[in-house]
Structure formats: structure tokens, C-alpha cells
């Protein structure tokens, strides 16, 4: 069975149709990249899969392990294994990254019928994971994303991903606002999570990120539809030629 | 209960007879009335005011009235419109008339005004007015203390635009009590700018009420300056009644001697998607007292309201008192509301910095005070007014701003 299936997905925001029939199939272990110009529905796709309010699905389905994702609440989807790395991670004043992570981790563990993680074990785990990601451990004592630089925010997203071990990780423009060093660190973090039973959906505007996170498949999204699919060479082709020809055919 | 002695005994029955209304039987708010806790009216209640003569002889307009170039000039003396002193060349889009005073329910001061105002000066705006309308209210008591009740009604039709300047001044001599009421209706998409300067004589009492209704898409910009008077209160109540209405209400006061000045504002957000901002600044020297009370009310359904309010006061000497009560009353959740308030004196570090640049202390003080007050005046979009009001403050500072603490 495929891990994540998006079938003929139509979605609109405030009555305006943004996604006009998207079909994607993610097999376990695969990395799919979604590329496309701004305003073609890339972020809408990630938000609809993750279950953000304000998007109306008018047609189609999304299945995770064959289960209907669209019938689940956002938190259920997350516990079922869908992880969205946000383009703009929100700041939550007063809540430390550590407290946040622990709460999220325990929510997942409870849902899986596992006992809550004890404080010592949790700290050990965070220490190990931050070390792997080359993050200063002290970062987890700071309020979540508050006063974080762009790079720190994205690293914190990857840290969460590492801790929560999702089935499907969606990276929404994770490269935006990152310098090359931060991009490398974040990509290495993502690559270390690649595994035969996990799939990635990497949404990006630029090919640059895909030098570091090498995809198995590349899809071009334009005007709410997948207008081309191919291997990683498609990304290079886009880099050279631009999106112009897809915009014309889509119009 | 909770009220001081009423004033009707001294107001005589002349007005009442002429207007065909019963003598005012209300009472002035007493010290236990929450909205008046910082502004006691004891001193006012002691003065046996008589109705001010509506035909008082006026030689010339007092010198402290700002000159607004090109503005039409409407003069009220003791509340009565004086054609002989006015220049009612209004230009297109504006008409004036004298109407009956609406006997609407309101605060006791509005009721007092309604009972005794000689007539209402009605300004009707039907289009984009070309000229600024400058209304000058002069208080002139003869040989005995007198009370006046100016009444102004402004109606700006949908889509119209007008700029008003209101100056409240008086003739030297006996104490007078001015109790003006201005009602303003801002129609849909209309734009009203109103700039008020209160610079009464040192013996005068001035308790003004402004009632504003702003309809959908309407803009209301106001600035109030408070300079003189023994006791001045400028109460401004604004209701935002249509979506996308916008209000900018700013003010400044500068007090010396035993002046008491009170800004009381009520910003009533009744519907969603409106915004309001308020910046009030004050400086107080001598033994004066500055008061700011501002309430922002956001009704249950008024989602997406953006309402802000700021009051900052500066002491210029040892002796004044500053009282401030910024109030938020919020019944809708999806709103952005905030207020801030500070009191203090001129930052010694700033003084030192200026001294280190070779500026003498008096100049430095004036500079810093002007800079402090400027924040409230920068939003005055009518440049002529900004200049005139700025000049009035500069003159005030030249007189009182250098007093050492």
C-alpha cells in the first residue's frame, strides 16, 4: 500500500479554487519535491494535508496508509504521522521549546498506547538529537521560536521532526530565509531522517535545496495542477529554463 | 444623591421662558460619580452664575484665537451666533443654519446645555467643502459671573468632507462658565477633521462635550488642545457605528498655575472592522492638575477591532498632580486593543546630552518639551492648523516652560 495518496484534490480558500485536481502518490522511503512559481498552491497543498482551517476541500481525497486523512482533525493527523515543517514557524511566548516538545511527544505516545516519557529520558533524548543537529542544547530552554533567527527557527522545526519521527514529513519552503550554512545543517538533519518507511514531500521554489535533499521525483505545480513530473533532472531543467513554459500551458 | 447642589437657582428663568422649556432641574455630577472623581466641581458650584447676555458688545476677536488663512469664520458670543462678527463666505458644499436645540437625553451637562442654549448652530456638509470652517466661541461675562451654552451640530452627508476648527476663548473680567456641546455625524465614507483649541481666561470654567457618530467607511480625525482656564474638561464620546470606520483622536494640554485640565474620552466600537487610535500628551507646571480618562469599549460583535490609546504626561515642576485612567472594556475576542500610560519628568540624560552639545538649560527644556508634545500633533493632517497650534504651544512654553522645578 502506498504511504500517502493524494487523489484529484480540489480545494478553495474563501470561495476561490486554488487546488484544481492534484494527484500524488508517495511510496515509503521516497522523497518527492514539489516545485512551482509563487502563488500556484504549493503552501495550500501542505496546509490542506495538515488540516489547517480556512481551506475547503471540494473534491478528492487524501489517504495515509489507506485511511481517510481529511476526516481527521489536525491534531489526529499529526499523531497519525503527518508532520508539517512550517514556512513561518509561530512564536509562542512563555512556552519553552523543551516543554513544547515534551507535550507533543507525549501526545503522540499516548495515542500510540505508550507510557509518557519521563523527564530524565526526555532530556537525554533531546540532548542526543540536538547534538546530532549541531544545535546548542540551550536553545530548548528558550521560548518556542521567540527571538529565534530564521535559521534557528528552521533548525527547531527539524529538531521537532527528529523527535516526533513522522511517517510523512512535509517541508514547506524550508529553504526560505536560510543562508547556505544553515541550509546545509537543515538538509543534513532531514537526510539523516530518510528511511525506508518514511516519505518526504519537499516544497520549494528554488532548485538549490534539492542539491542537498536529493529527491526521487520532482513535480511541477502550476495554477493548482501538477503540470509535469519527472526525476531529479527535472529540477535542473527548471533551474535553467524557468517556469515560463508551464505557466503558459497551464493558463 | 451623589450630586452637588443644582445650579438652576442662578440660571434664572429667562431662557426657560423664551425657549418654552422648564427650568433645568438636573444636578451637576458630584465627587462620587466615577467619571468625575478626578474633576470635582465644588468650585464651580459655588459661583452664582447668571445667564450670559447674548448681545454682549465685542470690540474685536481676542488675540489668542489662531489665524487660519482662508477659513470662513463663524463667531458665537455667549453661545449666540453673531453675524456681525462672522465671515460666513462658506464656499461650496457647506451651509449653516440656526436650529432648535435637540432636547435629547444625555449627561447632565448635555441636558443643561439643551435647556439653556439659545439655538444650535447647524453646519451641513453635502460635498467636499473647499474652505475650512473656523468656529470661534467667545465667553463674555459682564459685571457678574455668567454661564453660556454654545451648541454646534455638524452633519456630514455620505461621501462629504469638511475641516473644522473650533476656538474657545473669553474676554477678561468676571468668571464665566462655558458649557459647549458639539454633535457631529460623519456619514458613510465621509471625512471630518476637527481641531479644537481651548484657551479660556484664567478664571473660566469650560466643560465641553463632544458627541460623534462615525458611519461605515467614515473617517474622523480630531485634535484637541487645552491651554488655559481655571477648570477645563474636554469630554469626547465617539461611537463607531458602521464597519470600516476610522478614528484618530489626539490631544495635548499644557498647564500652569492652578489650572485643572481633564480629557475624558469614550471610544465605543459597536461594529466589526473599525479602528481607532488615541495619543494624548500633557505637560503640567505650577500647581496644576492634568487628568486623562479614556475608555475603549468593544461590543460583543465588534470583531477585528483595532483600538489603541496612549497617554503620556510630563511634570514641569514640583506641585502638579497627574491622574490617569485608561480603560479597556472588551467583549469581543478577535481584537487588537492596547493602551499605555506614563508619567515622569524630563529625562536628565536628555538634558545632559543637549548640554553637552552646548545648549543652555532653558532652551534644552523647551526643545525637549516641544519634542514630547509633538508626537500628539504630528498626526494633524491640516498643515495650517498644525503650525498655528504649534505656535500657540511654543508661546505657552516661552511663558511657562522655563520655570525651574
Amino acid at each position, binding site marked *: 500500500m502506498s504511504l500517502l495518496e493524494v487523489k484529484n484534490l480540489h480545494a478553495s480558500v474563501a470561495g476561490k479554487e486554488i487546488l484544481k485536481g492534484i494527484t500524488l502518490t508517495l511510496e515509503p522511503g521516497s522523497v518527492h519535491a514539489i516545485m512551482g512559481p509563487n502563488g500556484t498552491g504549493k503552501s495550500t497543498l501542505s496546509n490542506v494535508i495538515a488540516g489547517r482551517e480556512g481551506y475547503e476541500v471540494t473534491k478528492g481525497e487524501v489517504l495515509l496508509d489507506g485511511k481517510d486523512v481529511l476526516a481527521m482533525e489536525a491534531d489526529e493527523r499529526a499523531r497519525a504521522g503527518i508532520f508539517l515543517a512550517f514556512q513561518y514557524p509561530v512564536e509562542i511566548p512563555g*512556552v519553552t521549546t523543551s516543554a513544547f516538545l515534551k507535550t507533543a511527544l507525549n501526545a503522540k505516545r499516548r495515542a500510540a498506547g505508550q507510557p509518557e516519557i519521563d523527564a530524565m529520558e526526555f532530556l537525554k533524548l533531546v540532548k542526543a538529537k540536538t547534538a546530532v543537529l549541531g544545535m546548542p542544547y540551550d536553545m530548548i530552554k528558550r521560548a518556542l521560536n521567540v527571538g529565534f533567527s530564521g535559521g534557528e527557527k528552521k533548525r527547531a522545526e527539524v529538531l521537532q521532526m527528529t523527535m516526533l519521527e513522522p511517517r510523512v514529513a512535509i517541508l514547506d519552503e524550508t529553504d526560505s530565509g536560510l543562508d547556505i550554512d544553515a541550509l546545509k545543517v537543515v538538509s543534513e538533519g532531514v537526510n539523516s531522517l530518510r528511511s525506508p518507511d518514511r516519505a518526504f514531500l519537499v516544497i520549494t521554489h528554488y532548485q538549490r535545496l534539492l542539491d542537498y535533499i536529493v529527491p526521487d521525483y520532482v513535480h511541477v505545480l502550476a495554477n493548482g495542477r501538477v503540470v509535469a513530473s519527472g526525476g531529479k533532472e527535472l529540477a535542473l531543467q527548471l533551474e535553467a529554463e524557468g517556469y515560463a513554459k508551464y505557466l503558459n500551458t497551464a493558463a | 444623591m451623589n450630586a452637588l447642589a443644582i445650579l438652576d437657582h442662578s440660571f434664572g428663568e429667562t431662557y426657560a421662558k423664551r425657549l418654552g422649556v422648564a427650568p433645568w432641574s438636573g444636578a451637576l455630577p458630584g465627587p462620587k460619580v466615577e467619571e468625575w472623581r478626578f474633576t470635582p466641581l465644588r468650585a464651580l458650584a459655588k459661583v452664582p452664575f447668571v445667564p450670559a447676555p447674548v448681545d454682549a458688545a465685542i470690540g474685536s476677536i481676542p488675540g489668542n484665537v489662531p489665524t487660519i488663512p482662508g477659513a470662513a469664520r463663524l463667531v458665537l458670543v455667549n453661545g449666540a451666533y453673531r453675524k456681525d462678527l462672522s465671515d460666513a463666505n462658506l464656499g461650496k458644499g457647506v451651509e449653516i443654519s440656526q436650529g432648535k436645540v435637540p432636547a435629547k437625553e444625555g449627561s447632565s451637562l448635555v441636558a443643561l446645555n439643551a435647556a439653556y442654549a439659545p439655538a444650535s448652530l447647524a453646519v451641513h456638509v453635502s460635498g467636499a467643502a473647499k474652505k475650512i470652517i473656523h468656529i470661534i466661541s467667545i465667553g463674555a461675562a459682564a459685571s457678574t459671573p455668567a454661564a453660556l451654552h454654545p451648541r454646534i451640530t455638524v452633519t456630514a452627508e455620505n461621501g462629504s468632507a469638511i475641516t473644522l476648527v473650533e476656538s474657545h476663548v473669553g474676554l477678561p473680567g468676571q468668571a464665566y462658565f462655558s458649557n459647549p456641546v458639539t454633535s457631529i455625524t460623519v456619514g458613510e465614507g465621509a471625512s471630518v477633521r476637527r481641531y479644537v483649541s481651548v484657551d479660556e481666561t484664567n478664571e473660566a470654567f469650560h466643560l465641553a462635550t463632544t458627541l460623534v457618530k462615525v458611519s461605515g467607511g467614515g473617517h474622523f480625525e480630531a485634535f484637541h488642545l487645552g491651554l488655559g482656564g481655571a477648570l477645563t474638561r474636554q469630554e469626547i464620546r465617539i461611537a463607531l457605528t458602521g464597519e470600516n470606520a476610522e478614528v484618530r483622536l489626539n490631544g495635548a494640554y499644557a498647564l500652569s498655575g492652578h489650572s485643572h485640565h481633564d480629557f475624558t474620552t469614550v471610544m465605543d466600537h459597536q461594529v466589526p472592522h473599525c479602528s481607532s487610535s488615541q495619543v494624548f500628551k500633557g505637560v503640567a507646571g505650577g500647581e496644576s492638575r492634568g487628568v486623562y480618562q479614556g475608555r475603549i469599549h468593544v461590543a460583543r460583535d465588534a470583531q477585528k477591532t483595532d483600538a489603541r490609546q496612549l497617554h503620556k504626561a510630563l511634570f514641569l515642576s514640583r506641585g502638579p498632580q497627574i491622574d490617569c485612567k485608561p480603560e*479597556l472594556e*472588551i467583549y469581543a475576542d478577535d481584537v487588537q486593543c492596547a493602551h499605555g500610560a506614563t508619567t515622569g519628568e524630563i529625562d536628565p540624560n536628555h538634558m545632559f546630552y543637549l548640554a553637552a552639545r552646548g545648549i543652555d538649560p532653558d532652551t534644552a527644556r523647551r526643545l525637549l518639551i516641544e519634542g514630547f508634545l509633538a508626537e500628539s500633533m504630528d498626526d494633524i493632517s491640516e498643515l495650517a492648523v498644525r503650525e498655528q497650534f504649534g505656535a500657540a504651544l511654543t508661546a505657552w512654553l516661552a511663558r511657562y516652560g522655563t520655570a525651574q522645578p
Partner: protein
Amino acid sequence: MVATRETAAAVRDVEQYKYGFVTDIESDKAPKGLSEDIIRFISAKKNEPEWMLEWRLKAYRYWLTLADEEPTWAKLHFPKIDYQASYYYAAPKREKLASLDEVDPKLLETYKKLGIPLLEQQMLAGVAVDAVFDSVSVATTYKKKLEEMGVIFMPISEALQKHPELVKKYLGSVVPYSDNFYATLNCAVFTDGSFVYIPKGLRCPMELSTYFRINEKNTGQFERTLIIADEGSYVSYLEGCTAPQRDENQLHAAVVELIALDDAEIKYSTVQNWYPGDADGKGGIFNFVTKRGACRGKNSKIMWTQVETGSSITWKYPSCILQGDNSVGEFYSVAITNNRQQADTGTKMIHLGKGTRSKIISKGISAGRADNTYRGLVRMGPKADGARNYTQCDSLLIGDKCGAHTVPYIESRNPTATTEHEATTSKISDDQLFYCLQRGMKQEEAVSLIVNGFCKEVLQTLPMEFAVEAQKLVGISLEGSVG
């Protein structure tokens, strides 16, 4: 949102207020109602000195003149209280105890259920507890150890017997009998409470704690707490409150007086979790409390922290009178109202001395159909040269049926004093909520987390033992508020 509705419904079904049980214990009650006879009865029951009775009667007679002066300025709506319908004295029988071992096992069980073990071997290390059950103190732990250090920590009724000179000197010196309607009533009828005296120079190594419990039906609780920190001393004092779940409203009108002498510091923390009434506003405690501290000495400090989650009505303004030069007052508050609860709470910082400083951090959270008001006064007196105040009031609204209000009074008569006040009102942002949900948290859990973050600045001032409880309480108080 289907799941949210289900969660909310599930939460409503379970017993929300876990302290709502009643202890079936025989009690000794004075007849219902209020009169000079009742006051004489209370005073006699406590074997009080004559001056104490006189003071009570003076307060009572004054109170009678206040019949029309029950405060109405707060943003609170409640039916008129019939002061003759309450019992003013209720005590568990067998009150004279030689040691803790003689405490009625039912009482011990009650406090155990409340998480307050009174037997020393089970006790929280480092916390001495005075347990007040209805009108009387039933147990004070770690008494001996404290005595050795010179700390007096005992029920105020006992202090009147053993240290009458101290009580006489300070009682009513911060909150006089004529202070306000509820405080005056308290002066007339208070039955017990805690008395604390910390001797010169001692940093009390233990947290002192009083746990208040209303058990009896139709009983008002009127406790009186008096804490004196002598020169150079320090004490941290905790107060907790619960009451059974009942359909009738019950009255709680306490008075707390704190006195800090030169260089002394008092930290007073409250977690108030009286029964809040049910979702429709039936029942619950009417909490009218006068708490005031006097920083009498130079460099003294009083710090109030309160977490107010219970009561159907809260009327409470823990204040500081900053008399001593360079004294410091701080007020940290979290007030949560849900369902039909109403809170009008805040502080007064009265700056009299030179160089005095105060800080106010208030976090109000309103949910359901509740109203939550911050009301505060900062006053800079003419002699308070160089005084400073900083105030930050933030309100959070959860849902569109509640209200959040901020009513600060700032009065300054000193040019060299500075005041700074900021207030904001907002809601939990959809983005924050979605972010948490996307990480797998349930809505209730996400709200609790975000609100705890919102309150953090206040919660972190609580002693450790209380902080954890308070955090949980924040979550519990808001259950059913989103959806």
C-alpha cells in the same frame, strides 16, 4: 470541529472540580445570623481578651452603618447577600488537641484528598502547614521546629492567648476596622486564621502554608491572617483554598495584613481554587478579600503572587503601602474565569517613601461567559522622590461570549517619580493553535500549553511545590472553554 466538540462534551461529563466533596464530620455551630450576641459568642468561644471583643463590637456597630455602602464599583453582578442567612461560626468537634495524632482521622483524610498531608512523616519537606477547616485551625505542623528558631506560626486564636501584645500592636494596623464593608464585617466576626512572626534577622528556612477549607453548608468563612516580618527577616508564605461543590453561594470574606519592618521581606503566594460554581453559574464561593501589606521599614519588600482560578465572584486587591524608603512592592497575578465566573481583581501600590519601587504583572484569562477585570491603583505621593512603577496587564479572551477589562488608576504627585503602564488584549491566535495541533496535541492540551506560556512570568514566581499544581490548575480551569 467534531473532535473538539466531543472533547468538550467528555470533559463536561466528568467531575471537573475535584475538590467538590463534603466531609461528613460533626460540627459545633453558632446559631444562624449576625448580632452582637453572636460576636460575643465567638469571642467567648475563643476566650479572647476584653479589648478584642471591644474591637469586634466597634467594627460590628460601624458595619451596621454601612448597610447601603456595600461596594458597587466593581464590574461584578450578583444577588444581594443576606447576611443573616449565614452561619458565622462552625468548628469540627473535639477541637482541643494535644498533638497532631489526636486530629480526627476524617479530617486527616480530607486534607490528604486535598493533597495536604498533615501527619509529619508524610509531609512535604520544608513546608509547615496550618490547616483551617471552616472557622477554626485544626492543625499546625512543624510547630516545634519553628519554635526553636523563634518563629511564631500558630492559629491567630492561639496567638491571642499566647502573644496578645504582638497581636494587639499589629492587628488592624494595616487594614483598620473601618476599611471597607467586607473587611469591617471580617473584623467583627473573624474566627481564625494564621499568625506569623519572624524574628529579627531570620531567613525562615521553611515555606509556611495555610490551607483553607470551607466544609459546612451555609457557612461563611472569615479568616484573618497577620504576618509580621521583623527587621532583616524573610518569610515565604503560601495559601491554598478549596470548598465543596454546593448549589448555594457561600461567602468568604478574609483579611490578610502583612507588616515588613526594615530590610525584611515577605513573599505571599495564593492559589485560590474555591468552588467556582457549575457551568450555568449555580453555586460557588463569593470571595471578597482584603489583603494589604505595609512595607514599614526601609528597604523592605512585599511580593504578592496570586493564581485565582476558583470562586464564582472574586473581589480582591492585594496591595502594598510603600512607606519605608527604598521599599519594594510586587504583584503577580493570574486570574482565570470560565463559564459564568466573574473576577474583579488587581492591586494598589501606594508609594509614600523615597526611592520606592513597584511592579505589577497581571494576566487575565477569560473564557465561556465569564468577565475578568483588572483594577489597579498606582499612587505616587508628593514625597515619593525617585519612585518607580512598572505595570503590565495582559488579557486573553477565549471565545466570543466573555469579556476582559482593564481599569488602571494612575495618580502621581511627584515629578521625579515615574509610572509606566501597558496593557494589551488579544486572543489565542489561530496560528499558534494550529501549530500545536500539527504537532499532535489535542485542542485542550494546546490551549493549556499556550495559556501557561502566557502566564509564565507570574507562575515562575511561585514556590516550586505550588508552581506545578498551579500549572495543572490553569489547564483544568479552562477545560471545555474551546470548541
